[in-house]
């Protein structure tokens, strides 16, 4: 069985509000998969249904492997110390404490502090450590870097990459497009309870169309041009700059970031 997770016809409503409308997708073992969507798109509800934390109305969910879960909003007793929480969770999971993992996540550095005294980043890393205690095959991370500063975010990304290199299946819900683009093999974009797209970032680019972004840096400033016809636009831009005797410092062409594609897809869905 190469599938870690299989979701078929997943439906969930709150009263008349349909949050998930027949979701279908699979996640392979060892894959890093992202659920994207604007606020209220149903990411957390979908994750919690798959994690077994929320009842759903209909559909089938198959999860092959032990799971570790880092929730979007997590908390622990105010006065518990990180290592006490680690020991408690390890004992209930009958798992040996992986001190290498704790060290890598920086949990050992905070042993003297109580939970209430930890920074947001330290709390996030502790909750990730708790999710990893039982050595899970599948790890769910719901907005793992929300509210973190840049160093904490970079550190957590490093940890996620390490987990990926260990062959773990990672399911990530995030708002951070750069994070998703850097870490994930495939993405699913949720919109009004439906999957608007499921595939790789390159496939999303193809779906959006042949759109290019030309970034030009001059002494006068930076400009970005969006075009479907790279050749003609580039030639006319260069001609124009030459005529105006504007000196080019740098020029870059790309096919857009995941964020730009996501915004485009959301715009199309709304239309």
């Amino acid at each position, binding site marked *: 069985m190469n599938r870690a997770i299989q979701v078929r016809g997943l439906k969930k409503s709150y009263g008349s509000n349909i949050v998930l409308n027949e979701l279908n997708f699979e996640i392979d073992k060892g894959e890093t998969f992202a659920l994207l969507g604007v606020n209220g798109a149903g990411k957390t509800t979908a994750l919690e249904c798959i994690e077994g934390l*929320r*009842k759903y109305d209909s559909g089938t969910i198959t999860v092959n492997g032990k799971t570790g879960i880092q*929730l979007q909003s997590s*908390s622990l*007793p105010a006065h518990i110390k990180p290592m006490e929480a680690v020991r408690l969770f390890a*004992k209930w*999971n009958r798992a040996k404490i992986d001190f290498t993992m704790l060290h890598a996540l920086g949990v050992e550095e905070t042993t003297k502090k109580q939970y209430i005294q930890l920074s947001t980043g330290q709390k996030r890393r502790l909750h990730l450590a*708790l*999710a990893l205690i039982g050595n899970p095959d599948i790890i769910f991370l719901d907005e793992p870097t929300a509210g973190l500063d840049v160093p904490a975010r970079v550190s957590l990304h490093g940890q996620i990459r390490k987990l990926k290199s260990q062959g773990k299946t990672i399911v990530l819900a995030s708002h951070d497009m750069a994070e998703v683009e850097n870490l994930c093999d495939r993405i699913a974009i949720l919109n009004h309870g439906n999957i608007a797209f499921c595939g790789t970032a390159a496939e999303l680019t193809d779906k959006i169309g042949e759109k290019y972004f030309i970034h030009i840096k001059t002494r006068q400033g930076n400009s970005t041009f969006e075009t479907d016809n790279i050749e003609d636009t580039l030639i006319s831009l260069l001609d124009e700059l030459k005529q105006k005797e504007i000196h080019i410092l740098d020029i870059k062409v790309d096919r857009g970031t995941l964020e730009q594609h996501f915004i485009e897809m959301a715009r199309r869905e709304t239309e």
Partner: protein
Amino acid sequence: MNSFLYGVALQWKLDLRSKSLLVTCYIVPLIFFLLMGGIFTSVMPEMGSTLIQSMIVMSVSMGALIGLPPSLIETYGSDIKKVYKANGVPIYSGLVTMFLSAFVHLMVTCIVIVLLAPILFEATLPTQLPFFFLALAIYITSSLGIGSVLGLTVKNQAKLTMVAQLVFLPSIMLSGIMFPIDLLPDFLEAIGRIFPASWGYRLMLDNGFCFENLWYLIVIFFAAVIICGIVLKKQKEK
């Protein structure tokens, strides 16, 4: 079992770190004991024979009805419950460990009262100590049962403060520890009998350990177990 015992020991430590539980289980009951013990025995020296039981009823009621429920709301009314559920910690473990930990804290306070009252206020020790401590354990268990129901069913701290006071105050005022229950009007005496404090008080008195004073506390405890079980089952299935 190992994980469960670790959970109880850890909860006991967490309780000691929590100022609110220290206040409700130790500081306020013991200050009340030191002040009121002196006043009661000075004004009415005959109260020395029931001082230990009276002060214990006050301490247990405060710890169980005002001290325990906020800790339960902290866990079951927040994301802590979800984190436990998500990562293999049984949902009942929080309630059971907090219950047992509070039991130990209250027992410690009561032992301090039993030890100090004869020395400080010439209070009379219960004549049958084994029965007294058995009655005390049953009374603490029953009171913690009510505290557990409050902590699991009331949805927020603000409401809880009000509801806990509505249970605590009549419990104390109408239990017979402040003034003899015979002096109360019939309807207040009847209301007093709804709360376990009056039953616990009578059960702990010399020659009070009998089925007549015991059955209600047992009923309260089992009712609390059933209610807590239903609430936790609902939370698990949510």
